[in-house]
């Protein structure tokens, strides 16, 4: 706003003088004096109106300038936050788990397999890239047990490496090395997403998570809340001799120079149309689960179904059942080692709550009863027996993606087995 000019100031002073002086002199102004006063007042009013208009115009200009400046600053901020296009389209993530197991072996006849172990079990990195809006790549790279190499306990593994293309807005095709759509832990195994330090035995022994194969498939949405997956992929190659004969977990080749595999197909239907609830069923068929290089031809089917319920009150429930059925071969009859059908199930109620509405995060309490078939690990007398395990414990999430875990387990088995482990487990996990 520009200051008043000298001429403008003079007019105002004269006006004030004309008004004030008669009052000071105690005289009533004459009509001529009143007319002069009115004229001067009118001039002052016009001056003030002009000044007001000028002020409003400047205010409007300032407002526009502020708007333009704010827009520019916001755009710069957005550009800085997003970064170059290269960074925008590339993602990095990962998860990790540190475990401590202190478990006592109840079956000492065949040696003491007790554990007192500290282990950085998994260190995983994700790398992803969006080539276009509709074509993307994702990978999962893992180091197990801290140290890999000759004589070291760990492994370096490629668990996922796939490319997917959106066929339309509801269906996507995917090819590469991918985790199979079976179970709860198998597709979602970051440590902050499940209770208990160790993954449950049904999913690790029967399914057997984490299970990935090379293949091509599709996934998408059939109707609101109804989702599907369908994939054709390489199969397991389970041993046919030794103490791991027909053990599903021992059949994972991890797509590492995997020779002579039979092909398999897996399908899943998943319903999530009720908030808090997931119901899923998966089925798989393998034409030759022992691989094609030998003379043994055993077909196998896997059926898995589960329910996940998580209520906003904090109560949760997981229930899962999985089952393999093997066909017979004259050279190897699965029933002879109690492996004609290998199945397992578990039930896991839980309750998660915030720590007294504080910023200390959430606590979750859980109990899990598990029953599953597993090898007895007795040399020379290999067969599958039914195991049972009761586990109870607590998770603490100081942040949604960071978890501390403690649990106690009691294990038992029917028949003669090499080990059953009772004790405690401690764990730390994160994902980002």
């Amino acid at each position, binding site marked *: 706003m520009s200051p008043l000019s000298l001429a403008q100031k003079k007019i105002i002073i004269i006006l004030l003088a004309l008004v004030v002086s008669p009052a000071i002199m105690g005289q009533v102004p004459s009509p001529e004096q009143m007319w002069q006063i009115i004229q001067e007042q009118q001039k002052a009013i016009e001056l003030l109106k002009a000044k007001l208009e000028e002020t409003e115009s400047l205010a409007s200009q300032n407002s526009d300038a502020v708007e333009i400046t704010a827009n520019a600053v916001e755009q710069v*901020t957005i550009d800085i936050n997003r970064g170059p296009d290269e960074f925008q389209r590339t993602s990095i993530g990962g998860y990790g788990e540190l475990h401590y197991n202190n478990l006592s072996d109840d079956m000492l006849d065949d040696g003491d397999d007790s554990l007192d172990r500290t282990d950085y079990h998994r260190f995983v990195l994700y790398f992803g890239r969006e080539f276009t809006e509709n074509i993307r790549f994702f990978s999962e790279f893992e180091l197990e047990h801290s140290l890999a190499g000759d004589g070291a306990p760990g492994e370096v593994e490629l668990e996922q490496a796939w490319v997917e293309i959106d066929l339309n807005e509801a269906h996507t095709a995917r090819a590469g090395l991918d985790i199979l759509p079976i179970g709860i832990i198998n597709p979602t195994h970051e440590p902050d997403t499940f209770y208990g330090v160790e993954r449950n035995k049904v999913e690790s022994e029967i399914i057997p998570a984490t299970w990935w194969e090379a293949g091509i498939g599709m996934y*998408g949405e059939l109707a609101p809340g109804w989702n599907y997956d369908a994939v054709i992929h390489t199969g397991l190659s389970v041993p046919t001799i030794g103490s791991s004969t027909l053990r599903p977990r021992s059949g994972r080749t991890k797509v590492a120079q995997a020779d002579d595999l039979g092909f398999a197909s897996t399908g899943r239907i998943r319903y999530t149309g009720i908030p808090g609830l997931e119901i899923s069923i998966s089925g798989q068929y393998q034409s030759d689960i022992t691989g094609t290089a030998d003379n043994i031809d055993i077909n196998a089917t896997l059926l898995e179904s589960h329910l996940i319920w998580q209520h906003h009150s904090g109560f949760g429930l997981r229930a899962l059942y999985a089952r393999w059925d093997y066909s017979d071969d004259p050279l190897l009859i699965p029933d002879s080692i109690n492996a004609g059908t290998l199945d397992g199930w578990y039930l896991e109620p839980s309750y998660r709550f915030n720590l007294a509405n504080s910023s200390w995060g959430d606590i979750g309490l859980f109990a899990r009863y598990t029953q599953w078939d597993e090898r007895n690990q007795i040399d020379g007398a290999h067969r599958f027996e039914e195991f049972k395990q009761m586990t109870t414990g607590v998770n603490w999430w100081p942040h949604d993606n960071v978890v501390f875990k403690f649990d106690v387990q009691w294990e038992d088995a029917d028949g003669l087995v090499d080990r059953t482990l009772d004790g405690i487990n401690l764990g730390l996990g994160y994902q980002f």
Partner: protein
Amino acid sequence: MKIKVIIFLHILFWGFISPQLPARGTYQEPQAFLEDVFDGSVPVVSKLWIQNETKQQVRSILGHDLGVLRVSYWREGERTAWILEEIGKSLPITVGIVINANKIEKVKILIFRESRGWEVRYPFYTDQFLNVKLKDKNELDKGIDGISGATLSVRAVNRLAVLSLYFHQLVTQ
């Protein structure tokens, strides 16, 4: 093998002829959302400056800064409409939210960009927010059930619901 091929072809066939339900994409343009909300007479846009105490509260609600100096909103009496974005897993979800007398009147997913978690766009999830308001410490006064497999998208939408209620209080007090 023949049976497997037949099943696979069925999935392809039924998947493509089923009503096209876009999992990702633009479900409604922001301007069209506003015209729906205000029956065609969209008020002049207003701006809420994000600074000082407001900035701190935003950080508390979202876990990060909003990244903008001001937020646009449209107001008609005791109703305000907000179009906000929050990242789910790696890409932003654009959400339209209407607040009326300090309660949520409507939540609509406008644009969903990610390849998973699209279930949050359905009424079976968004209808949970109807008539929800804020209680102490910027929390919703009603629990919202999530969608299995869409955890990050659910968290993003929940945060935006809290944020819009907080903003509404600021501009109408």
